[in-house]
């Protein structure tokens, strides 16, 4: 076992310690907040790079290089079966995620120093950020589904705190609650899947030298059994766990929280949407890929679980992209874009395996972080204005922001030969390659292509709105460039993207080789060429449409209706209303919930209350008897006794008249009697 | 000379010889009392005239000058007048007590004379605790004053009585303590022993008499005694109880005629007897001041009476000179000066007695200096304290309200 594996636990521990230390610091200790959180993150980055190098070193001939380090967490019974183990694993998946998260996270931390400069709770913000980073890193390095789950929930808590960071805004508080509760629905499935997995395999460790749940023996056992309806247990477990992943990654039914989470500070948006939390779901699927991909022997077709993942991903990609077309909030557009891209990732994993999905995840993390930070810079420069209709022409005011933003945007839209084009292209290639000839199986590919067109369209629309034309905000408050500490991360991310896009670098080749252990899919060259052509067309179509609609015509004023809206008002309204998913949920789930609550209330009132009433009445009856006994037997007896004592006292106080002369009389009598007794006594003797 | 000195004693013995045996005791009593009851009222009569003449002289006027030669028979006129005046008693007065008050006062004043030795072998009774008797009888004075003031049912009378009692009680303490100094020095309560202790003289040719007034403590004691005696007998400047200008003669405002005269008489008799006690205690009693031969020619009772006359004249002089005190000054003087001085005087007496056995050269001088110092220092301190200028708050009247 290498030293890097043994010290793997340090990577999440460093930000955790920073968070703990910050929690104890005084409130206005900004210097410590900056130094501790950024320092811990930088150290974590260094350790992650070291782990990546170590992992590269280990890369041998025999498949994927993997090292793990397990320890007993608690023991509740005798023998090997009675212990619960946790552990850390170092494999290519972990290594690239670590480097990505720490690198992007570090840049976001640095950006936050500038962005949150004026905030009163500066220290608290960094405390939460550090906690979030710690949880995320813990999630990545864990070799146990249980540890992963713990960190998963910690990520949820941290995101709750961060989204609701400006809790004095009611929207922020509501968004935080929404995020937390929505993901909790998915987590419920995750928990069930985990418990089922433990019940079947007796372990939650991923890799344990042949005894782990992702290893050959366990998978074989899982596929051998089948649950109700003839579905393999592995598929059921995979789908349950996918619920959790869908919740975290904002897949279709559970995507509603993600756009709302834009209420948090922009660095939080960047951190959550770009690099980490949303990626956690994809990462989970990638981590559990063996379970998802397990196919019962003798079953025809691909793995059922992966098919569902594919469909969910494709649907989400198109769905979210459609909504993004009609949004006006700069961050909200990016949020729906994120949801859409997450759909791509799921699609990629579903059709092309871990490497395809993860590559898009990593690349997306870079350019989406860049976009979010750029958007943060724009918002910052435009005096907290988020509506793109009130921006415009700010490329002259904020050149650095504009050019970096442009690089990120072009990556996202898939300008050919940029790294974003490559990652998306791989997904589409895999999707095309995976079809079985039927139209239905070709549909994911077509949806992906349509999504690409939409992506190109809405991103160009946004850029044309925000950066070109004339400034439509208040003239007195012209936009200004952001401080250097915010520009530096932008430039760094843009530089990274440009670096990845250099023809000599070929990140995809290296990445797939590293992650898949040299095992390459054989894809026909014809497919590749077709897909490249279609992608370029899609990009051009989206871009030219946007150009015609928004750049050529120009945008009149901030309150003028959208070009699309003028043409298709009803469709645009539907899109602007986000397909009314929130309203649908309001009408269905929440209404049902309310109805259930009412039923429970009725049950409580009528049934349980009746029973309780009866029991109470019985008790009251007993109490009544007890009271009678008390009142007429004990009390009266006591009163009687007291009265007698009182009477006695009154009699005894009679002589105590307070008149001293009455006492003196008694003394006189006793004197006489005493003298008489004395006299008789003396004469008698 | 011996005959003249003992003439009254001889006379009494001679007269008793003519009295039948069973009546000798009462006769002896009568013969002891009668001269006192005759002589001192006579002196009183003379004193009233003398006082008025002297006061007149001091105040630059003539005084009584109509009755007799130079007005010297004024006392007879006054006596006759008071006897013949109507006796007015207030309707609401407590008649019995009102009547008894001057009687009690007179009786207690007269009783006090019984222990005074007026001359060699001239005393009414010779009891062991003569001084104690003197003061015990004096206690009746306060009671009489109260009776007079209370029974009159008069606001001023009661006020005066209360003032008088408060003053008498306050000054009785220094009076007693001053007398106690002599008791300590002589080791006896008998006035005869005290007179005997002051016989002879000291110094070259015994020129300085052995009177106690010529010792440090005796001098201080004598002064204290004289001041306290003036207060006891309500003499000016301590005549607040009968201040005419404030409470129209105080407790005997409601007395008239013979009763008023009785009060007057009793007051003067009290003054005489307390002055006599002062003579006995400090001024050598009936002893002659000098050991010269011609001094023996003058009878002892004459010496006594002349000393008494000196003190009475001193009081008259004081009355003509000093203004009346305020009540708070009076009380402060009694409790903050007289009483501490009298107590310190007792200590000095003890020191004086303790140092008597010293017989080395100059011991006498050291003794004197020691005692004078012991008295002078407190005198200065107390006097300064008394004279220190203090602010008086508004007075609250508790008894008169």
């Amino acid at each position, binding site marked *: 076992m290498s030293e890097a594996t043994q010290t793997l636990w340090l990577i999440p521990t460093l930000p955790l310690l920073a968070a703990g230390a910050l929690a104890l610091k005084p409130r206005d200790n900004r210097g410590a907040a900056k130094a501790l959180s950024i320092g811990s993150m930088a150290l974590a980055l260094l350790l992650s790079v070291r782990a990546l190098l170590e992992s590269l070193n280990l890369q041998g001939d025999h498949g994927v290089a993997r090292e793990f380090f397990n320890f007993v967490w608690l023991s509740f019974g005798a023998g090997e079966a009675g212990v619960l183990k946790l552990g850390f694993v170092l494999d290519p998946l972990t290594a690239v995620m670590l480097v990505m998260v720490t690198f992007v996270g570090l840049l976001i931390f640095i950006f936050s120093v500038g962005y949150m400069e004026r905030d009163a709770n500066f220290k608290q913000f960094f405390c939460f950020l550090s906690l979030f980073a710690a949880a995320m890193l813990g999630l990545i390095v864990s070799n146990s589904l249980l540890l992963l789950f713990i960190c998963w929930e910690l990520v949820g808590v941290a995101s709750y705190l961060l989204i609701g960071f400006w809790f004095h805004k009611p929207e922020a508080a509501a968004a935080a609650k929404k995020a937390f509760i929505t993901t909790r629905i998915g987590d419920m499935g995750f928990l069930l899947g985990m418990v089922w997995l433990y019940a079947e395999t007796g372990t939650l460790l991923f890799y344990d030298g042949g005894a782990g749940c992702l290893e050959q023996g366990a998978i074989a056992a899982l596929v051998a059994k089948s649950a109700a309806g003839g579905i393999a247990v592995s598929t059921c477990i995979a789908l349950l766990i996918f619920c959790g992943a869908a919740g975290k990654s904002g897949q279709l039914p559970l995507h509603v929280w993600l756009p709302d989470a834009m209420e948090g500070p922009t660095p939080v948006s960047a951190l959550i949407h770009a690099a980490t939390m949303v990626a956690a779901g994809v990462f989970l699927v990638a981590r559990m890929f063996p379970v998802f991909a397990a196919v019962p022997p003798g079953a025809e077709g691909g793995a059922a679980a992966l098919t569902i993942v594919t469909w969910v991903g494709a649907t989400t990609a198109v769905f979210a992209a459609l909504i993004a077309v009609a949004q006006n909030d700069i961050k909200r557009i990016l949020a729906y874009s994120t949801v859409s891209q997450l759909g791509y990732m799921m699609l990629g994993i579903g059709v092309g395996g871990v490497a395809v999905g993860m590559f898009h995840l990593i690349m997306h993390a870079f350019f989406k972080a860049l976009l979010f930070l750029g958007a943060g810079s724009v918002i910052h420069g435009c005096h907290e204005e988020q509506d793109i209709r009130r921006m415009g022409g700010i490329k002259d005011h904020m050149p650095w922001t504009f050019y970096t933003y442009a690089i990120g945007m072009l990556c996202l839209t898939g300008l050919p030969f940029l790294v974003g084009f490559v990652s998306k292209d791989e997904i589409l290639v895999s999707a095309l390659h995976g079809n079985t000839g039927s139209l239905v199986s070709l549909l994911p590919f077509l949806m992906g292509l349509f999504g690409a067109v939409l992506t190109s369209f809405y991103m160009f629309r946004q850029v044309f709105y925000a950066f070109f034309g004339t400034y439509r905000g208040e003239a007195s408050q012209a936009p200004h460039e952001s401080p250097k500490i915010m520009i530096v991360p932008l430039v760094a991310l843009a530089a990274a993207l440009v670096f990845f896009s250099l023809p000599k670098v070929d990140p995809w080749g290296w990445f797939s080789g590293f992650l898949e252990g040299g095992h390459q899919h054989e894809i026909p060259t014809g497919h590749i060429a077709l897909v490249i052509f279609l992608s370029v067309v899609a990009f051009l179509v989206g871009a030219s449409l946007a150009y015609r609609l928004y750049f050529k015509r120009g945008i009149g004023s901030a309150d003028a209706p959208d070009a699309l809206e003028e043409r298709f008002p009803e469709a645009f309204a539907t899109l602007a209303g986000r397909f009314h998913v929130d309203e649908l949920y309001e009408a269905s789930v929440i209404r049902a919930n309310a109805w259930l609550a009412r039923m429970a209330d009725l049950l409580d009132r009528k049934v349980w209350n009746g029973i309780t009433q009866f029991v109470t009445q019985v008790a009251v009856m007993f109490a009544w008897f007890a009271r009678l006994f008390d009142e007429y037997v004990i009390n009266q007896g006591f009163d009687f006794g007291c009265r007698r004592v009182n009477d006695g006292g009154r009699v005894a106080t009679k002589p105590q008249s307070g008149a001293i002369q009455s006492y003196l009389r008694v003394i*006189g009598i006793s004197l006489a009697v005493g003298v008489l007794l004395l006299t008789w006594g003396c004469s008698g003797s | 000379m011996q005959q003249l000195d003992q003439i009254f004693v001889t006379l009494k013995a001679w007269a008793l010889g003519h009295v039948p045996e069973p009546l000798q005791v009462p006769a002896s009593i009568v013969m002891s009392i009668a001269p006192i009851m005759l002589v001192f009222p006579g002196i009183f009569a003379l004193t009233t005239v003398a006082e008025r003449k002297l006061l007149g002289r001091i105040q630059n006027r003539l005084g009584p000058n109509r009755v007799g030669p130079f007005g010297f028979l004024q006392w007879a006129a006054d006596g006759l007048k008071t006897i013949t005046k109507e006796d007015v008693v207030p309707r609401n007065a*407590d008649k019995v007590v009102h009547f008894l008050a001057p009687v009690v006062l007179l009786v207690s004043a007269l009783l006090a004379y019984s222990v005074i030795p007026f001359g060699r072998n001239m005393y009414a009774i010779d009891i062991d605790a003569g001084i104690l008797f003197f003061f*015990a009888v004096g206690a009746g004075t306060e009671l009489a004053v109260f009776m007079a003031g209370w029974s009159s049912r008069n606001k001023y009378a009661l006020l005066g009585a209360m003032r008088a009692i408060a003053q008498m*009680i306050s000054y009785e303490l220094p009076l007693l303590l001053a007398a106690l100094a002599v008791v300590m020095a002589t080791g006896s309560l008998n006035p005869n022993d005290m007179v005997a202790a002051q016989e002879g003289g000291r110094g070259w040719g015994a020129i300085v008499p052995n009177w106690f007034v010529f010792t440090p403590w005796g001098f201080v004691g004598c002064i204290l005694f004289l001041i306290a005696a003036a207060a006891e007998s309500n003499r000016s400047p301590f005549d607040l109880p009968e201040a005419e200008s404030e409470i129209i003669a105080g407790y005997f405002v409601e007395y008239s005629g013979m009763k008023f005269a009785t009060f007057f008489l009793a007051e003067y008799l009290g003054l005489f007897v307390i002055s006599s006690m002062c003579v006995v205690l400090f001024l050598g009693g009936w002893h002659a001041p000098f050991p010269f031969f011609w001094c023996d020619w003058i009878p002892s009772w004459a010496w006594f009476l002349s000393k008494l006359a000196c003190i009475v004249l001193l009081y008259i002089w004081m009355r003509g000179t000093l203004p009346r005190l305020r009540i708070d000054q009076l009380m402060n003087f009694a409790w903050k000066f007289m009483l501490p001085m009298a107590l310190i005087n007792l200590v000095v007496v003890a020191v004086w007695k303790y140092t008597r056995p010293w017989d080395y050269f100059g011991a006498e001088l050291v003794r004197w200096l020691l005692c004078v110092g012991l008295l002078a220092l407190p005198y200065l301190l107390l006097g300064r304290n008394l004279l220190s200028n203090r602010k008086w708050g508004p007075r609250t009247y508790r008894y008169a309200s």
Partner: protein
Amino acid sequence: MDAPFLIAAVLTLLSAIAAISLRNVVHCALCLTLTFLGLATLYLQLGAQFVGLTQIVVNVGAVAIVIVFAILLTRSSDNPGESRFNKGAIWAGLICAAVFATLVVAINTSYVSMKSGAPAPPLTVEKIGHELMGRYVLPLEAIALLLTAALIGAVIIAMKESNEKGGGQ
């Protein structure tokens, strides 16, 4: 029984009875003074000269005056319409008579009265002084302490409430 004793005893007893029965409280106090004087003469008759004179000095000169003062300070409480005797006066009188009777019986039956020693020799003041400074020096000091305490205590008790009004001498 000789005449001086009879006179003094009758005077004492009568004034004592008057002291407890007269309506006017001041008269009572004066009668008490007379009783004290009578008792003093009885002491003198018994040969206790010093005690007799001390009795006069203390009781007539001080106690009587204090009582008189107290009467004057509490004067306004007199209620002319009210009886001067309390409710149980008859019983109290009977009790007193019974006490007197028993005491007389006790005196007459006591063997102490059967024998009587020689009359005591006259007690000079000097001897009393020596006794006081010798055998009885401790009680004397105790009495001195008691008198001081009583003096201070009486002043404090009597002044307590008048202090609030500004106080007097």
